């Protein structure tokens, strides 16, 4: 019998029992690689979160100092209409913005990967480039675009005689969603794209030998490959849009009629409570509740499929 190539499957077979034994015996080797991340993560996230939970049971007043109030902050939050209106707003934002953005990102990634484009490199960088712009600057730019008097919308209006105002309260959220889509489509595209680039060439080869059409290749090879990255982009996008802060707070001073209130999004509300309202304890309670809501939604939407992926 051949002692070289032919043996290898059996050899692999020989070793699986050992591997299985390892699984039962608590295999600590992973921590060799995991601990640096874990240490920094505990320092930067876990300790501050524990502290936030701790202070959410207290109340600090200008008159009377700090006192323990139990769950008072939480019960106040439940009946805080400003808070729930902000949650509703980001929920609507998420429902519309995340699918549009991810669809664009996936479509762009597939187009780039199809090798059917002229100038693939150019399109790849132009899609990604907006992500490189700091939020401060991109909001400045879009603020100009949206300007009904001096901006592009204004020029459009005077040219066509229309009266479009994208910053009016009814469509403001969509205007913000557009900024976010512009900023983050490239980011998500890149994730999809780099995951597509791990598909082995031989798969395509086999598919073409079988006479598969372009669409069949996309459907049965590429889309399944995207599933894994889709799960994580969905979760991170949901978390991201629930934490909407930069764009509305920078736009705040450009929008007529103060349509962006200090409680426009939960994060802005937390910021204002904490930094201009001297209510860090209440803001901490808000943060904890938001985290629970976000996790619940992420879980319902995607976590299950993501967990499978991670098994």
């Amino acid at each position, binding site marked *: 019998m051949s002692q070289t*190539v032919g043996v290898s499957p059996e050899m692999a077979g020989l070793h699986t029992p050992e591997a299985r034994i390892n699984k039962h015996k608590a295999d600590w080797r992973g921590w060799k690689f995991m601990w*640096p991340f874990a240490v920094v993560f505990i320092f930067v996230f876990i300790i501050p979160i524990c502290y936030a939970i701790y202070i959410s049971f207290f109340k600090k007043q200008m008159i009377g100092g700090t006192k323990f109030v139990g769950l008072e902050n939480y019960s106040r939050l439940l009946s805080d209409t400003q808070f729930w209106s902000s949650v509703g707003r980001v929920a609507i934002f998420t429902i519309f913005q995340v699918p549009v953005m991810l669809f664009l990102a996936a479509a762009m990634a597939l*187009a780039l990967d199809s090798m059917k484009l*002229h100038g693939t490199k150019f399109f790849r960088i132009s899609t990604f480039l*907006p992500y490189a712009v700091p939020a401060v600057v991109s909001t400045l730019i879009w603020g100009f675009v949206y300007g009904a008097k001096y901006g592009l919308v204004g020029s459009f209006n005077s040219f066509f005689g229309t009266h479009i105002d994208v910053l009016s309260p009814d469509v403001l959220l969509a205007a913000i969603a557009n900024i976010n889509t*512009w900023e983050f*489509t490239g980011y998500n595209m890149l994730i999809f794209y780099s995951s597509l680039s791990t598909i082995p060439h031989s798969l395509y080869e086999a598919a073409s030998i079988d006479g598969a059409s372009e669409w069949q290749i996309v459907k049965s090879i590429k889309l399944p490959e995207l599933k894994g990255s889709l799960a994580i982009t969905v979760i*991170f996008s949901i978390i991201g849009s629930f934490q909407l802060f930069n764009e509305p707070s920078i736009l705040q001073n450009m929008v007529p009629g103060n349509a962006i209130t200090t409680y426009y999004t939960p994060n802005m509300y937390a910021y204002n409570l904490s930094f201009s309202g001297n209510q860090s304890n209440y803001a901490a309670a808000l943060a904890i509740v938001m985290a629970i809501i976000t996790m619940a939604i992420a879980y319902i939407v995607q976590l299950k499929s993501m967990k499978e992926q991670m098994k």
Partner: protein
Amino acid sequence: MTSNGRLTEAELKAQEKAAKAAEKARQKRIAADEKAERKRAAKNGFSNPANPTRSIGLTVVCAIFAIYCLFPFAYLAINATKTQADFTSTFGMGFGKTFALWDNIVTVFTYQDGIFGRWFINTILYVVVGAGGATLLAIMGGYALAKFRFPGRNLCFAIIIGAISVPGIALAVPQFLLFAKLNLTNTPWSMIIPSLVSTFGLYLMWIFSDQAVPDELLEAARVDGAGEFRTFFQISLPLLAPGIVTTALFAIVATWNNYFLPLIMLKDSNWYPLTIGLNQWKDQASTAGGQAIQNLVITGSLITIIPLVISFLCLQKYWQSGLAAGAVKE
């Protein structure tokens, strides 16, 4: 047959070694073949064997999207050529009366004793140490999660998702207090340490390691007697290249554009990164008695983006070789 049934330990080892070497050689061959195939295909203008032609229609659709992505940059580029007076008085997408791009660039680097240069160097420091470290930690962590079944592994996922669901704004105060306790505020460490965590990078590397590093290869290396770290550096890292580049790019941009954290942590303008510095300049226009220097803000923003574009261009070749990583996965 009988002798084969009961191999001595030495024989077993030798066999394993031979098998491993053969497997390695085979993988190498496949990788090389595929690389050549991809090269040939790319040269001919197609790589998707089912469809060799480029599509004008698809290109046009993508071009429309590219315009959407790029036209705000035209705004930035045009306005970087204006003086402050032209900025307020002329139309946003048209050029000003004077072409002041060079003046603006010079002023950006000389204003307030040339502090912009200092901010630039700071940002590079934060990116190299912070984003570099974040990438390394994410690779190691993601690799561990994908390739080892260690105690606590199943909890990691839930804990990390839970932690990043907490609004960062509300964590800023506790983070600040913690860093202040340790006398780390107002030092580069208050910028670098939090930058070391890239949860998104961790997940990305988790997925990538799962897909790109075959278990058999690791087993083979272990059988070969290689330590975990040697296996990691010599076998896994090269396979992870496209994932690493993606993760690094995200970490770089995230650190480069980090705004909220340094705003809380740093009060010494000598340690500011570019984003905070530019925002301080922007605020100057809305301060009582302050001079508006929007022209410098715009020009500074444009300069800020350039290094990111360069690093993107440098890194992008790694995605093309992503195929080599995929080669071992069948």
